[in-house]
């Protein structure tokens, strides 16, 4: 999983340290959930474009 703390420190400008306790937990939660969901994406799946089903 991503080392969000390191990423936050490396960002330009860096993420202020005092925000990290509120910034990181949601990112960890979303990353874990996305990793599961993206396993099921077929290679040919395109980006959502707001149009109704084009199939």
């Amino acid at each position, binding site marked *: 999983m*991503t080392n*969000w703390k390191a*990423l*936050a420190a490396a*960002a330009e*400008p860096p*993420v*202020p340290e005092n*925000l990290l306790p*509120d*910034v990181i937990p*949601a*990112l960890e939660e*979303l*990353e874990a*959930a*996305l990793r599961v*969901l*993206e396993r*099921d*994406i*077929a290679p040919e*799946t*395109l*980006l*959502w474009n*707001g149009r*109704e*089903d084009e*199939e």
Partner: protein
Amino acid sequence: MTIAEIGAALRSKKISVRELTEETLQRVADANQRLNAFITVTDVAARLRAAVLDHELARGVDRGPLHGIPIAHKDNIFTRGVRTTGGSKIFADFVPDYDATIVSQLNDAGANVIGKTGLHEFAYGITSNNPHFGAIRNPWDPERVPGGSSGGSAAAVVAGLVPLATGTDTGGSIRIPASFCGVVGLKPTYERVSRRGVMPLGLTLDHAGVLAATVRDVALALSPIAKHSSGYRPVAHADLRGMRIGVPENFFVERIAPDVMLSFRAAVQTVAALGARVTEIKLPDVEALNVAGRIVQLSEVSALLARYLDRRDEFGRDIQVLVEQGRLIPAIDYLNAQRVRTVLVRDFSKIWKHLDCLMTPATPMTAPKIGEMNVAIGTFTEDVRTAATRLTRPFNVLGWPALALPCGFSSAGMPIGLQMVAPPQQEDTLLQAGAALEDAFGIVGRHPPT
């Protein structure tokens, strides 16, 4: 009074647009210190416009049902020559040089702009507890939030200050305040109402819409702003006979406050009694919609706000946190969240083979207290923002039209909201169902005591 009632009074000359405007401005002046619903009141322009609209009526020029109707616009919607703050310190003095399309469409339909309503900073939150312009108060209980981000619009409508207001909705920002304040709010189909001149937030999630006291008033306002409008207006006794309405058996009925669940179950019984064919339905992965939607929103908003990072001290703390989260999300994750969205839209769309409409609670709880960060729902404690958007955000991700309307009151006297959802472009179905329900509930249009 409803828009139709005001219109009848204007046309029968019981009242002029000028008198109506003066009464409206007086109500706003009396209530705004208590509610903080308006950031800007455009009294001079409203008076001038009222005279023009009166003159038109006298000459037989009738622009239709909105002629002379007072309206307030959310303050992230451009109004030419009138400052449009987005609820932010950064745009505190920004004055657009053109009207948003939704504003010009409503102007052309005869609405008279009374002012600009307050909102959560950047429309990026659900409390409307704004660090720069002050907390907006819920007219049912001033210690509670009105919801957000269109909190000022909902508060202004339910307090009877204006019969109609515009709003925007990226994760629930029309429907959440509608639910918390007990008004009707419509988030139309994605891109059915123009976003030109609306300050962008979530580039592929933003919707513009309206809030009013009744479903029928919402229908009157939708007509001039919706692309390909049918001009549908619910009949006097709208019914639900034969309408296939789905009631989720998963997600939307989990972690719901008891008062809300009680009202929701009663609404389901009402729908059945009105002749609808009610079907319990197990929906695909709704949590996945929220995950994809949150990643997309965080990324898109930060892409827009990153240019102001050198002024981030001028953001409220909640906005600072969200902006920092968004700029750390890798592009790959944003793109895959959008691809997950493609798959989910395809999966969810299958439900419309068997249904005309879906009904859910609008929010899992009633309005929290101002400053409350977490909310207890039964034995479960949840962050207020996540809880409030849990049932609304999925329909921003799907892009489907969704209508929030009041369906009851909690034991503490706070409004409870119902959400009706339809397939893309089927706003007429929502309006028909909503009108039948507002007749049956008999509580829509109720105002708090002043």
